């Protein structure tokens, strides 16, 4: 398969970026999107055309949350429930022009080319996305009773890999799906419930402070999440917030 790539190139955070056009040929349809970019980079290096295109990646099996490209108007490209590394070239048509952009958000500044700084997510987690006491080793089964549906919902929320696709997809660059997944995952379980009220307030305050937009319930985040995190988590975050504020002691 042959493709024309329009890739965002930007030397550093302060430089003015632009789109560059590259052609790649004889790409296998079984190639993943990142492998296709590897092939492009090899040719850029060996033919001394340009500095290779920078992009984030690590595990390449959809669990680390490092990769993330805005491909033809969709985060992680034209497939549902997959990360960019799991996206295959057979999802594109031969000869297609593919536009590749970095995540765009004030809170995710571009470092170089397609690499963005997602430290903002770490800061939100540092604000309260944890259980602050050691809960010890693995307890005996059934020593802490957790309802099946609660455990399922917590596990579904815990699937969030923090890739930032929700922010990238949202027209407001809102991080509500990410924050809601983290809040839900901990608030639903007994170990996390103790600090739930405190946690939700700290994480939301940090999220606001970091310059993310406000959720307007368009659900682009849900549509683009590679881990299919549901909007119901955002409603749970809102509920947790209301309960925390109403029940707040002076």
């Amino acid at each position, binding site marked *: 398969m042959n493709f024309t790539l329009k890739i965002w190139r930007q030397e550093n955070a302060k430089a003015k970026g632009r789109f560059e056009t590259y052609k790649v040929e004889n790409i296998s349809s079984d190639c993943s999107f990142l492998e296709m970019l590897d092939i492009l980079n090899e040719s850029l290096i060996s033919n001394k055309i340009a500095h290779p295109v920078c992009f984030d990646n690590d595990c390449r099996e959809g669990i680390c949350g490092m990769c993330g490209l805005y491909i033809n*108007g969709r985060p992680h490209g034209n497939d549902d429930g997959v990360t960019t590394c799991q996206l295959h070239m057979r999802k594109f048509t031969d000869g297609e022009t593919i536009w590749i*952009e970095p995540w765009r*958000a004030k809170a995710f500044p571009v470092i170089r080319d397609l690499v963005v700084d997602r430290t903002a997510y770490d800061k939100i987690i540092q604000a309260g996305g944890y259980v602050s006491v050691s809960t010890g080793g693995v307890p005996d089964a059934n020593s802490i009773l957790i309802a099946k549906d609660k455990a399922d919902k917590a596990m579904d929320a815990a699937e969030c890999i923090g890739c930032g696709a929700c922010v990238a997809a949202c027209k407001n660059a809102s991080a509500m799906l990410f924050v809601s997944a983290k809040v839900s995952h901990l608030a639903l379980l007994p170990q996390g419930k103790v600090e739930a009220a405190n946690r939700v307030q700290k994480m939301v305050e940090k999220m606001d402070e970091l*310059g993310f*937009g406000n959720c307007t319930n368009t659900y682009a985040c849900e549509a683009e999440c590679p881990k299919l995190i549901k909007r119901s988590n955002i409603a749970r975050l809102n509920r947790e917030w209301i309960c925390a504020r109403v029940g707040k002691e002076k």
Partner: protein
Amino acid sequence: MNLPKIASISRKIVVACVGLFLLVFLLVHMGINLCLLRPDDGAWYSAACNFMGTNYIIKVFEVVLFAALIAHIVITVALQIQNWKARPVRYHQPSKSKTSAMSKTMIWTGGLVFVFLALHFVNFYFVKMGWVEGKYMIQSEELITPELQKQYMELSQGLLNEEETIAFQTKMEAVNSIITKAEAENLYSEDLKWIYNLSAEDVKPLEKVVEGVEPDFYHMAYDLFANKIYSFIYLILFVALAFHLIHAMQSAFQTLGLNHNKYNKFIEGFSWVYAIVIALGFAIVPIYIMFFV
């Protein structure tokens, strides 16, 4: 525009609560508008307008309504400005994510609804408040009944005997004092009947006089809607309102944390039905007047 440091979710909760209040208000307003369709020469409609204009509970709610509306607009505009700032560099490719058009255009449909409100205020509300002179404001001088006018002419020509002259003067005095009182206290003929213990027969010649205190919204509405350009703009703006409301109700529920697998479909369906009923309920009045009157 930066609001004082209130968390994003708290602001959105205010927007959602106020939005739900406005949704209920629209239903009430639609009910009054539908009275225009009754072939009763405006009896129900005028009674409803009079009730809304004079009832003290409604007067309190009028203030609440304005506060709600202003809060809704100010907070959403401030949030929207933050949202635009949250993505200083836009994407080159337009988003192809699966989302509803209504949810993405709330600020624009809301803007159109605001344009409508401005139009609506100039036409009706400012007239009601007496800030703008409506051409339908009936002048008291014109309302001296034909019978009184005739008697006045006869008096000036010396055609009335003494008894008739005294009767006429007593009547004029009564009319004048009631007009003065009615104008000062914004009373309506129904009130007068009660206050002065007058019979329906007594009030009849005064009815028109006292109505002169209030603008005639019934004929005003009919004449405005008979204007095709006005009605067309009105209808377009109600399409925008329908778009706004389809997303509004379900979004408010989500913001208030009311999301449940069992009821989500119902909430979504109810939002659609409510939005369409409201928009059609308002739209049917100009459509009827344009084409069937």
